[in-house]
């Protein structure tokens, strides 16, 4: 898979406090906020039917639970490797959305990282960053 450029955000899963307490362990049943994991919009046919990145012009390959992606924060070049633990983000709800750091931009939400993984490449308070995602 060639690197895909888009947007990265974060989500909580597993045991948690506050509003996150109701989120559960994700579609793969393994998701934990403290692990290097992520949600992927095409983790299954049922998942893709919900997230629909294709309708935003960003078709993504089918990758199932445990598959490893590497996400690079285009704002600072920091990179993290994570495995699929959930379905998401719901790309079609934010179709065409664009995040930039100067001239480095990403369009459409393509991956959500756990707090542990996102905080390894960006501050959690940023919420959204342009990124590239690849498999090596």
């Amino acid at each position, binding site marked *: 898979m060639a690197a895909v450029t888009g947007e990265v955000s974060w989500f909580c899963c597993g045991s948690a406090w506050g509003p996150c307490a109701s989120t559960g362990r994700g579609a793969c049943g393994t998701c934990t906020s403290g692990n290097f994991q992520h949600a992927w919009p095409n983790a299954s046919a049922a998942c893709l039917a919900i997230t629909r990145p294709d309708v935003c012009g960003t078709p993504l390959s089918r990758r199932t639970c445990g598959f490893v992606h590497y996400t690079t*924060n285009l704002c600072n070049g920091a990179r993290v490797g994570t495995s699929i633990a959930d379905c998401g983000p719901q790309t079609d709800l934010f179709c065409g959305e664009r995040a930039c750091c100067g001239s480095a931009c990403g369009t459409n939400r393509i991956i959500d990282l756990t707090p542990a993984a996102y905080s390894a490449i960006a501050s959690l308070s940023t919420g959204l960053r342009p990124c590239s995602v690849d498999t090596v």
Partner: protein
Amino acid sequence: MTTTMDRRRLLSTAVLGGAGIAGATALGSLAPEAALAAEPVKVSPGAPDPNFAEGRVTSITGSVVLLAGSDGALHRIQVTNGTSIWKFQPTTFDRLEKGDGMYVRGVRLPDGTLAADSLWANIVNLTAHIVSVGRNVLHLDHHGRRLIGHVVPGTTAAVYNGTPAISDVSLLRVGGHVQVIGVWHPDTNEISIATVYAAN
């Protein structure tokens, strides 16, 4: 001195108010974006990150915060003058309180203490849809649960479909989908909204 000074030694000596903090200043900011860009991540994909902790504050003694992890683990967090602290906005150590929920990133010291580079108190990142809009308040549905989102005039920012953030939240519409970065009010269903990202 080179800039490759051992980070564990730096953070273990840079105790809040301690003499070692000059070293932190000499090395530059420990703010997350700068620190993270400088240090490669060595945790295997899928694995727990030993340099990360989450949980709720059970006590604060001096510059040490004890966290009860949601999974039952206990974490001892050492805050330093170089720790970046966020609670609705960048803030100071004295704003932390018992009962706060927390995510912490830092360096695990040999005794198991996590020396904090960055600490986020009560931060939430939620996707929801807007059920109703009131004066300085959004009523949100988050996975079937109602949340009250307080708009803080002068602080809350709105981002409409990727455009630059503005303070005007009047373009938000009932039924619209949003992503909210905010702070949870502990033990309630209320949050204060730092940034709201609105979908099409």
